[in-house]
């Protein structure tokens, strides 16, 4: 049965997207920030509709898409991210000229919907199409500042490398399809589980190509080269969007694909994730030390974070379904903590940068004197990234790494902890600018736009809440992770009975 009702939340999101674009087209004199508030309102409706899909029995749409708690989890995340980024942009874009705001906000919603489809896709081509919708939206969003050369350059680099990675991904899909004879995840898992011989080398190559393709999207080293440039050139809210939504979407796709379709051959791909994780976190954190630009610093620091998260995916291959569930729950709860923290950081940075006009780290000089609240939010976010207590990062990183700890992965968990120690160094360099130095010029308190102030305050409370009482977020993450491993354990038991 074609259950069109499964996509009701996305109808809302895309409907609002069309409405926003049409509004700008037909009512060009409308105040532009109304579009932002309309988008935010749409995100709220989308979120509310998404809540209705929690705690339901999994329902599949034609074997292409499944609506379960995992999908619902990412839908809520997407709606939340779009909400925050839209409000952030309302303030940011006031200062920019020549931006087609209708498209800007419309694409935010479209990208968010694509993330939901990526999380729910149970078929390779659906996953690929969703990935492309997300990527194309981001290409445009990164280059939306048409008169800014850096923005154009960033967009061009992003398109070229993104197209290349899409090609890798697609080629990988074709190899897997060639061996399995089907593109559905369940079919692939069945075909691989039921074969007589060992792993076909072509499939191994296909998996690695898929991994490389998604590695580009989540900016895992050595596929991270585009990220610092794209982050630097993009408008600030889009930098926030890139480092939250685009990464979360990538992980959603990887998680479902590797924990269901490719689970049989975990032993063949798990080392690749370990290697990728080790390289990514080390490269990200070491290069971050040398950065002078805030956005580039965040870019490299988020590459480091991706490195930690990849450990959890590797851990899927080093244990049974229970270990997989532990690792995935940990990864999801860390993703939530990471997203809330990043959004808080960018809300504060947007406010600070709109005042100082400088995106250098040194531009934050003396912020503790001129705007103590923003300095507090930035400090809390950075401490959260570093995993210090009271802040989300402490609990979520601990859960994620503990969940990923097995006899074989303990060494890389240790490496992750060492890396988060390195990261504290460059976070302290930012905090030093704000608290240890006097501001340039006279130290006058400045006011923050109320919307940004409110956003930063709410997100700061979110960081503190997750940090001090992580229970609800962790339980929610476990609930979201469960559907992936029920089918895995069912498949495993089916395999035992088959011969």
């Amino acid at each position, binding site marked *: 049965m074609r259950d069109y009702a499964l996509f009701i939340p996305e109808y809302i999101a895309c409907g609002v997207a069309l409405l926003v674009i049409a509004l700008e087209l037909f009512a060009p004199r409308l105040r532009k920030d109304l579009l932002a508030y309309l988008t935010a309102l749409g995100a709220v409706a989308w979120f509310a509709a998404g809540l209705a899909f929690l705690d339901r029995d999994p329902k599949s749409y034609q074997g292409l898409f499944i609506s379960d708690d995992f999908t619902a989890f990412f839908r809520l995340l997407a709606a939340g991210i779009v909400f925050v980024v839209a409000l952030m942009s309302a303030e940011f874009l006031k200062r920019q000229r020549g931006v087609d705001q209708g498209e800007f906000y419309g694409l935010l919603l479209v990208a968010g919907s694509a993330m939901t489809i990526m999380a729910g896709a149970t078929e390779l081509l659906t996953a690929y199409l969703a990935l492309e919708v997300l990527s194309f939206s981001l290409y445009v969003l990164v280059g939306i500042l048409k008169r800014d050369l850096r923005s154009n350059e960033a967009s061009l680099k992003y398109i070229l490398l993104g197209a290349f990675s899409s090609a890798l991904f697609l080629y990988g899909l074709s190899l897997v399809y060639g061996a399995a004879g089907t593109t559905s995840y369940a079919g692939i898992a069945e075909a691989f589980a039921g074969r007589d011989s060992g792993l076909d080398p072509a499939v191994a190559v296909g998996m690695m190509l898929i991994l490389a393709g998604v590695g580009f999207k989540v900016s895992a080293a050595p596929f991270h080269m585009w990220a610092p440039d794209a982050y630097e050139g993009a408008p600030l809210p889009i930098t926030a969007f890139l480092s939250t939504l685009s990464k979360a979407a990538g992980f959603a796709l990887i998680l479902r694909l590797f924990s269901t379709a490719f689970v049989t051959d975990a032993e063949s791909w798990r080392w690749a994730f370990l290697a990728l994780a080790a390289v990514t976190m080390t490269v990200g954190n070491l290069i971050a030390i040398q950065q002078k630009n805030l956005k580039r610093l965040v870019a490299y620091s988020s590459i480091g974070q991706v490195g930690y998260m990849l450990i959890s995916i590797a851990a899927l291959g080093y244990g049974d379904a229970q270990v997989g569930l532990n690792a995935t*729950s940990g990864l999801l709860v860390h993703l939530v903590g990471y997203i809330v923290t990043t959004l808080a950081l960018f809300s504060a940075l947007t406010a600070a940068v709109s005042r100082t006009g400088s995106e250098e780290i040194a531009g934050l000089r003396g912020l503790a004197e001129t705007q103590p609240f923003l300095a507090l939010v930035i400090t809390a976010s950075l401490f959260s990234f570093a995993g210090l207590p009271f802040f989300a990062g402490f609990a979520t990183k601990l859960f994620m790494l*503990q*969940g990923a*700890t097995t006899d074989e992965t303990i060494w890389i968990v240790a490496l992750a*902890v060492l890396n988060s*120690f390195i990261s504290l160094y460059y976070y302290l360099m930012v905090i030093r600018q704000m*608290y*240890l130095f006097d501001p340039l010029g006279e130290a006058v308190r400045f006011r923050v736009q109320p919307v940004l102030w409110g956003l930063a305050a709410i997100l700061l409370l979110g960081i503190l809440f997750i940090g001090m009482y992580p*229970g609800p977020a*962790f339980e929610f993450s476990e609930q979201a992770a469960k559907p992936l491993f029920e089918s895995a354990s069912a498949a495993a038991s089916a395999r035992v009975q088959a011969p």
Partner: protein
Amino acid sequence: MTFDEGQGYVVLATLVLPLAAALILIFTPGSQKMAVRYISAVTGAILAALSIYIFVAYQVDGPEAQMNLNWAWVENVAFLGPGGISLRLAVDGISALMALLTGVVAFAGALASWKIEYRNKDFYILYWILLAGVYGTFFAYDLFFFFFFYELAVMPLYLLIGVWGSTRKEYGAAKLTLMLVGGSVLIWIGIFATFHQAGIGTFDLPSLWAAGQDGTISATAQKVIFPLMVVGCGVLAALWPFHTWSPDGHMSAPTAVSMVHAGVLMKLGAFGIIRLGIQLLPEGAAFWMPALMVLGTIGAVYGATAALTQRDFKLISGYSSVSHMGYVLMGLATMNTIGITGAVLQMFSHGVMTALVFLMIGALYDQAHTRDMKEFGGLGRVMPLWVIFYAIAGLANVGLPGFSGFTAEFHIFVGTFRTYPVFGALAIFAAALAAAYMLRMFATVFFGPLNPHWKDLKDLTPLERLSGAMLIASIVIMGVWWAPFTERVGHTVTLLPGVTG
């Protein structure tokens, strides 16, 4: 509500009160500097009272862990079983004494910071967050919260030293923070490994201790994890060769931070070695303790020797702290009742004594703006009370009978001679060096001709007298009537796994 449960809330209050004070201060206008000071003074006084109550109310004939409080926090999720993480607080004989130390030093430190004018609100906010972390670590009976509070106590130091410090403060702050967090990295890895090896799905410390003692955590694993835990905690306890942050950090830190840091925070490291080393990994302890004995002895002798060559008051005290923490580690490494009891007594004794020393240094530096020993002389004529207070701290430092240092060091030396006679001799040699550097300083600074440049120095302010008097009272009481101290500590120490009589 049972009596014990009610007392659990007293323990909880020691964490909540400083955090509440920090929260109230956040919403106090920064221009109200006096209000900030009064709020902090009241908080310090209540904390001191609560701490004294906890110490006195701990019953030496009762169960080991008293004043329990156990709130489920996160459980039955993923790898966490029933009671996975709970806010479990309790007091044992060791933490009762540490609470007393924290209360006295925190109150004294709050009073000593009265003089701070520059952004004193922010200073006190960070100060109280730090103290919440200290209390939390001492009382936590859950590994998650132990580490939570441990890190919480380290976190504010960067700003406290970087903003309000002196002499090369940025360097000192960065070095101290990075080294301490580097230490906690090792603890963090140790925690992951322990939880995984125990495989019981809970961070509850008593359950994990049981797992360590009945072999659920294998002997091999314990031998691997133990160095992670002990070096990780050891960084904070100035374990040689990871002590180098201590002189630099103390030199840069403002007075109250030096007091709390040397007085209380360094004890968290030694306390961590008891909790996460001796109690959690007894097999590992049995294997590695001789190595800790060697490092502790080197620290004791090296610190004393280095102090002998320094001219800056704070550097002398910084190195003297390295030396005294060396004694603590030696006492722990003896693995016999008297040695470990001595180590815990030394933690207390060194805490109050060092706090007093840093208080005195601060009182001088705030007026003279130099800490170079050679520039002073004959201060006894202008600052008699200052000289008396400093002399008491110094004599306690040397281990003169009648002061706390004697009680503590005597226990440690007896314990060390029982197991490692050679190291015992070295420890006494280090104590002789302590006498040398202290008396050298007394001779230069207190006596001799007065440099006319310093004739206008003022003696201690009433607030400094009050905080100094509290610290001196602690030093003297422990020096002359140590039974209440040794009873409480010994009550717990005899129950530690692997400890001989």
